[in-house]
């Protein structure tokens, strides 16, 4: 009895709200056909299934672990080259570079800043796996699993070594880029890293012109400068560097003890091998010198960041539109103002200017506030960089700098001890 009643109510609802509202709103009611014509169905080609993105994570993890094994245990450049060829083919040309850990920084930053942002678990994993791996195996991700790194690494023909000072100064660029990208991501104004990625248009064989230009420049540069993007711009390297400083396992040039033969010194195209050095005579600088320097850097950074933030907010879509609308209503000759699509759409919709202006004002002040953090962060990095370069620790052997080493394995081949060990292993295998 109740079931019957329910069916009648449901049918009533369907007629009232379902069928009624669907067909009454059309200018030309969809026809009923007398002939035996069958309406085709709108073709909905499906997106890839969820499990496919988890498959990618398994492949990523596998590539990182293999690369770590090849650089730490197996100590073989050729294995690393094979892994990076695979990564280049799979993550680069097959998956076409998206989504990658480098870009995922922005997703995570956006999710932290805006509750309600769409962040799948797979993206969190892609973001954190290489970082966790860096805590245990150094930059194994850069060495074999990153398609960007692999492309540059394989393109290197004849390297020129950059002066140390230039190399260190340029590498601040990565932190700056990281800071800017996070600033834009938390303010919901776009993903800089993805928009200016140099290699993705090559992976996709298509893209805007400016991307090809920047990509071409980086590809040309990487034939004679080792990994220019990784060293001077990659924002992910800015996260990987400090983490691999405290890494549990490190790449060593030689499998046993270093005999300081000097043969490996020139093998690293990335300037990542620290040479033996005597401890510099202690220049007694009072501790407050550093503290004052540190505080001054933070203060200066905050002030600079505040104004930079205000300036950068102009690149936000809402702020841009608000400025245009403001100009439009405050100039006498409206016809002379050429409006962008966004502004035209805004005027066409006839929404209230006040709402747009408040929104834009909020965005600008948010930019200024986050600019303070950006400025302080950049000056903090600069401070650390200077202090780090003043430090002259005693070093008795040649060893890779754990932050800058990308686990490419080039130095192994130049080490006589490594060669001897490898030869012995080969002989053992034969017999």
């Amino acid at each position, binding site marked *: 009895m109740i079931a019957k009643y329910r069916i009648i109510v449901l049918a009533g609802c369907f007629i009232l709200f379902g069928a009624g509202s*669907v067909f009454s709103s*059309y200018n*030309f*009611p*969809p*026809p009923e*056909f*007398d002939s035996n*014509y069958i309406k*085709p*169905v*709108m*073709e*909905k*080609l499906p*997106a*890839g*299934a*969820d499990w496919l*993105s988890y498959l990618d994570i398994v492949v990523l993890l596998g590539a990182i672990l293999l690369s770590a094994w090849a650089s730490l245990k197996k100590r073989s450049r050729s294995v690393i080259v094979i892994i990076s060829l695979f990564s280049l083919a799979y993550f680069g040309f097959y998956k076409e570079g*998206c*989504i990658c850990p480098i870009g*995922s920084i*922005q997703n*995570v930053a956006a*999710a*932290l800043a*805006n*509750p*309600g*942002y*769409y*962040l*799948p*678990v*797979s993206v*969190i994993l892609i*973001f*954190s796996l290489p*970082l*966790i791996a860096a*805590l245990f195996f150094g930059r194994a991700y850069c060495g074999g699993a990153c398609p960007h790194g692999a492309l540059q690494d394989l393109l290197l023909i004849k390297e020129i070594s950059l002066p140390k000072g230039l190399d260190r100064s340029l590498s601040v660029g990565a932190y700056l880029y990281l800071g800017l990208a996070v600033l834009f991501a938390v303010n919901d104004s*776009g*993903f800089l890293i*993805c*928009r200016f990625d140099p290699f993705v*248009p090559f992976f*996709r064989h*298509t*893209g*805007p012109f400016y991307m090809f230009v920047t990509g071409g420049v980086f590809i040309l540069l990487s034939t004679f400068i080792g990994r220019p993007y990784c060293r001077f711009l990659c924002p992910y390297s800015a996260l990987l560097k*400090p983490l691999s*400083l*405290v*890494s549990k396992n490190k790449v060593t040039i030689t499998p046993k003890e270093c005999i300081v033969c000097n043969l490996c010194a020139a093998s690293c195209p990335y300037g990542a091998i620290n040479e033996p050095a005597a401890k510099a005579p202690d220049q007694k600088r009072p501790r407050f010198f550093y503290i004052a320097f540190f505080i001054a850097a933070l203060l200066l950074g905050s002030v600079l960041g505040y104004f930079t933030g205000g300036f950068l907010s102009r690149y936000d*879509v809402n702020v841009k539109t608000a400025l245009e609308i403001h100009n439009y209503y405050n100039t006498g000759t409206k016809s002379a103002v050429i409006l962008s*699509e*966004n502004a*035209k*759409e805004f005027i066409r919709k006839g929404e209230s200017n006040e709402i747009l202006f408040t929104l834009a004002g909020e965005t600008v002040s948010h930019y200024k506030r986050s600019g303070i953090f950006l400025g302080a962060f950049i000056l903090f990095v600069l401070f650390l960089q200077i202090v780090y370069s003043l430090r002259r620790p005693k070093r008795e052997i040649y060893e890779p700098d754990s932050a800058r080493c990308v686990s490419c394995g080039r130095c192994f081949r130049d080490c006589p001890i490594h060669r001897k060990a490898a030869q012995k292993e080969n002989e053992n295998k034969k017999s």
Partner: protein
Amino acid sequence: MGQENKISRMEFLKKTGRGLSVLALGGIAGAALGRSKRKRESVWQIDPDKCTQCGKCATECVLRVSAVKCVHNFSICGYCNLCFGYFAPGQRELNTGAENQLCPTGAIRRRFVEEPYYEYTIKEPRCVGCGKCVKGCTAFGNGSLQLQIRHDRCKNCNECAIAKACPSKAIFRIPAAKGYITKENNDSKI
């Protein structure tokens, strides 16, 4: 003191650093995940009710032939003889002559079904996603022609270039399982 302990100062600092980093990473990942609205995989799609057919879909996509195509939702099509998506304004005759067609690439096929109804199908390889037909159909007809992002073509970029350029903010992420938004079945307004 360093010699008395089993680990040196450097090693202690490193261990602490590693521990703190693990905690920080875990914290960041956990917080980001906790604040995220949905945790499933997602794809970009166009809300046909917000779309104004400005034509940017054809030009802003990172793919040189855009991933946005016109799709035909037959279930709400009026099968009109005078289709505003098919015929250019001021057409001479209601026939398939090229001079009468609105589509710049001739990607729509018109076929007689029964008096007075005609069927319109999109030849998808030819479509460039300019949305001219969609504009006509939305303005005067039922809006059965609509622009949608084709997931076989879409690279699912981290940041959709068209979404950033879209003046009416009609492009956003939807659950991958859903895939397409049709006009009569648009529950994307949350």
